[in-house]
Every structure is written in structure tokens, then in C-alpha cells.
């Protein structure tokens, strides 16, 4: 039992934490009525996931990926042998990838915020239920 917990939970704590935060974010996206809160949820979702990918880069220490039965493959900057000789190093590629991802997520948030502002200007509210009601009202009045 202890072994199982060690193997699947303690050693892979980064996976678990990331997954929990991802689920928190997704829940917010789905459940919240307020458009801004949805957006916050989306950001949490994305960030949690970046966190996980960054943690993948840590191949030198506990060698989580090995115990997980994975191959880490050839890395562009440090050689494989370095890891085998026990040097502690981080694979920088996930970090680089996630740097790009963060930029993209910032851009997404900016676009979404701009749209939310326009929605507020147009409808006077950012609660989804009220928005839909207003839209139905427009539909009846024939306003585009």
C-alpha cells in the first residue's frame, strides 16, 4: 500500500497538483456565470498546465519519467550520458516551449478581456444569464 502510494502519488506529486489545478480551472470555466470569472478559470487552467510541463523538464533528480516508464529521448543541449552519470540538470526545452505558451495565453487573455469590455459596453452586464435574456429581447425587437 505504502509502496503504491509512493509510486503513484508521492513521486508524481507534480502531476497530481497540476491536475487538481487544471480541474479547478475547468470547473470555473464551466460553472461560473460571470464572464470575467470564466476567464480567470481559463487562466488557471492554462497556468496549471504550464506548471506541469515545466516540471517535466526536471529529469536529473528523482528521474520521475524513468520510474513512470518513459523515455526522455535525446536532448539538444545536454547529452543523455550526463543524466546517466548523475549530473543534476534540467531539460530546458519544456521551459522554452512554455515561455511561448505563456505569451500565447497572455494574448488570449488580452483578446478576451477586450471582448468582455465591449460586451459590457453593449449590454451593460457580464453575467451570462442576463446576456442571453438581453439577446432574446433584441431578437424580439429585431435589433442586431
Amino acid at each position: 500500500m505504502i509502496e503504491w502510494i509512493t509510486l503513484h502519488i508521492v513521486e508524481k506529486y507534480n502531476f497530481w497538483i497540476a491536475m487538481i489545478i487544471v480541474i479547478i480551472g475547468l470547473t470555473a470555466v464551466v460553472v461560473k456565470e460571470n464572464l470575467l470569472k470564466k476567464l480567470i478559470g481559463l487562466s488557471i487552467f492554462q497556468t496549471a498546465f504550464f506548471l506541469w510541463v515545466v516540471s517535466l523538464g526536471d529529469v536529473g533528480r528523482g528521474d520521475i519519467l524513468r520510474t513512470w516508464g518513459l523515455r526522455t529521448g535525446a536532448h539538444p543541449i545536454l547529452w543523455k550520458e550526463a543524466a546517466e552519470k548523475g549530473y543534476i540538470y534540467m531539460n530546458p526545452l519544456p521551459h522554452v516551449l512554455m515561455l511561448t505558451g505563456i505569451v500565447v495565453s497572455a494574448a488570449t487573455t488580452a483578446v478576451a478581456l477586450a471582448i468582455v469590455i465591449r460586451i459590457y459596453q453593449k449590454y451593460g452586464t457580464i453575467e451570462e444569464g442576463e446576456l442571453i435574456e438581453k439577446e432574446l429581447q433584441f431578437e424580439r425587437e429585431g435589433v442586431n
Partner: protein
Amino acid sequence: MQLVEHFPVLIVGLSMFTAYTMLLVGFLDRRLPYYIALIMNSFFFILSLFILDYVLTVGPIRYWLGGWRPPWGIEYVVDAMNAYLLIIVISIIILGLIYSRSNVKHEIEERKHVTFYVLVQLMAAGLYGITVTGDLFNMFIWLEIASLTAYALIAVAGGRALRPAYNYVIMGSIGACLYIFGVCWLYAATGTLNMADMRLLLPLLYTDKVVQMGFAMIVVGVMIKAYIFPLHLWQPDCYTWAPSTISSMMASVHVKVMFYILIRLFFSVFTLNFIWQYIRFDILLCWLAAIAILAGSIWAIKQSNLKRMLAYSSISQMGYLLLGLGLSAFSYWGVVGLVAHILNHAVGKGCLFMSAGAFYQKEGLRQIKDCEGLGKRMPFSSAAFTIAAASLIGIPPTAGFASKLFLILASLDAAQYQFVVVLLLSGLLNLIYFWRVIDKIYFVKHEEATKREVERRGDGLPFSMLGPMLFLASLCIVLGFVWLSDLSTPLMNQILANLGVGGSL
């Protein structure tokens, strides 16, 4: 290294560069960005023709960015499939730009014109990028560029378009996130991001849960972007309220390029062997497609808004593509149908959205019931609408008939007879919802129509709107013969060979 081999990267790089130039030039004169975009994209079109010729005669182009060797550097790979898609994307973007000239004046405030064209050009750059790249992460960057600009372009219409645009941002971001999630899982397993390299490394890991999970993540992420059936909910509202130009461009090429990611994933990152032996995904995909085809059509029948109906029709047509993809595991005719339908649907749906936009611009109509007597008032747009609708229904000898024929043959070849029934039934459903409109346009008597007929001759639309529409409509018929004839056999054989599908025509 030949000159042609630089063209893919030239197209993508110059597109980005053009977009920023347009923004700067826009300060000088608001009309200039349009002309710059038009000229540059026409230039890209010529380049893409050279690329296709090179790919068909010599072989795939492999371009290493910055001279870095593939597993580490980014690689651009253009084979027959990309070259074919690249030509479609560029030509539809050009036609859309021509069409937008007077449409944009009508639907978008003037102060936004410069940014509108900049965003269109950026979206084009993103689409070209996805098309030519051979690197999974690079594909994500282009995917995001194409998506972010699409969010903004839908929202640019203002008013009712805003809420759908917001929904699209949320759904699209989740989709993109899942995509990059999947790519990272594959990276964790193989340590590479290059498609060709990954294809070599993956077969040993096909049974690995990580690889299978990564595959599933990417598929779901892309499915959101390509609004495949259960994940389509953001799409109808967006297409209904977006500017007509954008609806037309997105429905015809944006979604095709998104779908292209799936094709690459299936054929160039994984192999068909993985799809049908290790995860048994093919038949599931076919059933999903069957449901999408029928459900999309039935929803389309229920709509009263013209553009919304077309949007649901797109969902159903994406099902055709998905069916082709699913059946390709059994029969190479599936790939043929898929490849043919990519073009046919791009041409047909582009034309339909353009004419819907023309109806809105001239008559202010959005509802199907207002279409009465349009055939008299706007003869050319109505004719274009009718021909394109006939193509999507699959009436011979239009283009849609050919792709339906290929898909039917694929289902027969795969001994999956139920999908033949689905395809044939969907033709009838398409007929119901399109014919409802055509009946209104031409055949229902309308008193006002005869009165208004005297006021003007023709459509009262500039040639810049009619030209692209009529060109696409005529293409619907010409393509019908091209696909039936053996003219396209060399291209198809090359695509089949490049995608690693057995068999040839």
C-alpha cells in the same frame, strides 16, 4: 538548393512582415493595406503554384529553418498534401479579400478598416504557417496566431457577434491548450517535436499509455477548433454574426486548415496502423462522423436564420471530412474523398456565405422567410447561391457529387454499408434545407419583388463582390468534371504516396 525550396518559408515570413507593414502604411492612407494584402497574396499564389509543380515533379520540399538539423531545428515540409491545401487557402483568401472590398464598408466602421485587413493578413499567415510546417510545436504557434486573429475578426462585427466571439475564445483556448498538452506528452515520450522524427520513434511506443493519451488530447483539442460534432457548440453563433467575409473565409479555409492538423497527425505523426490496430479509433470516428452528418443536417433544417443554417450545414459537412478520415483506415478511397471534399466544401461554402452576405448587404435580410422573390432582384447572387447549394447537396454534375461518390465507394470498399446509407440520407436532408431557400428565392410568388425589379438591373452590387461569388460558383461545376475525370489522378496518387496510404488510382 533550388530557389523553389525557399518558397514555403518565404510565403509565411512575408505574410507576417506584410501584416505589420500594412499596419504602418495604414497611418498614411486607409485604403493602402487592402491593396498591399491583395498584391502580396497574389504573389504568394504564384509562388504556391511553383511549389505544387516542384512537389509533383521532384518530390517533397524540406526546409531547415536557420540551417538547424531537423530533430533540433524547426523544419518546414511541403509534400503534395500541403501544396494542394496551400493553393486552396491562398486562393480563397484572395477571393475573400476581393469580396471584402465593398462588404467591409457596409458591415464594419471605417476606423477599423486598417486593423481589419491587418488581422486578415495575420490570420492568413497563421493558416499558411500551419500548412507548411513540419514541427508540432511550431504548428501550435501558427494555430494560435490563426485562432487569436479569428477571435478578433469575429468580434470586429460588434453587437451580437461579441458573445459568440467570447465563447469562441474560451473554447478555442481550451482546444489549443489540449493540443499543446498532447504534444508535450508525446514529447515526454519521444523527446522530439519534429513530425518525421516522431513518426520514426513512435512505433515502439504504440502500446504506451502516454502516447495514446497524447494522441487523444491532440485529437480532442483539434476537434474543438474544427467544430466536429459534439464539440461544435461555439460555432453556429460565431458564423451567424461574424462579418460575411470572415464567415466565408473561416468556413471555407480556416476550418479546413484546422482539420488538416488531424490529417497530419493521423498520417504523418502516427500511422494508420496505430489508428486501427492499437486504439481502434477508426470505426469510432466513422460513427462520430455519421452522427455529425445527420445531426448537423437536421439542425440546419430547423433554423430560420440563413447564415445560421449555413453554419449548421458546415458542421454536417465537417462530418463528411471526418468520415473520409475514418474510412481511410480501410480504403484509400476515403483519403481521395477527404482530399476532394476539402476543396469542394471550401469552394461551395465560401460561395454560399458570400452570397448570404450579399443578400444581407443589399436587402438587409438575415431570415430565410425574407428571401422571397430574390431571384428577380438579385439574379447573379441567387444563381451563385443555387449552384453552390447544388454542389453541397451533391447533385450531379457538381463538385459535391464527386466527393460523395468517392466516399460511397470508400464505405463500400470498407464493407461499412451503414455509412453509404448515411451519406445518401444526408444528401436528401441537405436537399431539404437548401431547397427550402431556393424555392423561396425563385419560385414563391412575391408581389413586391416585381415592383422592385423595375428599379434596377442586375444585383446592384459591385463587381468586386459578384466576381468572387460567380467564380466560386462556376468552380463548383468545373471541379465536378475535374474530379470525375482522371486529370487529378497524378495529384491524388502523389498525395496517397506522401501520406503513406497504400494503393493508387
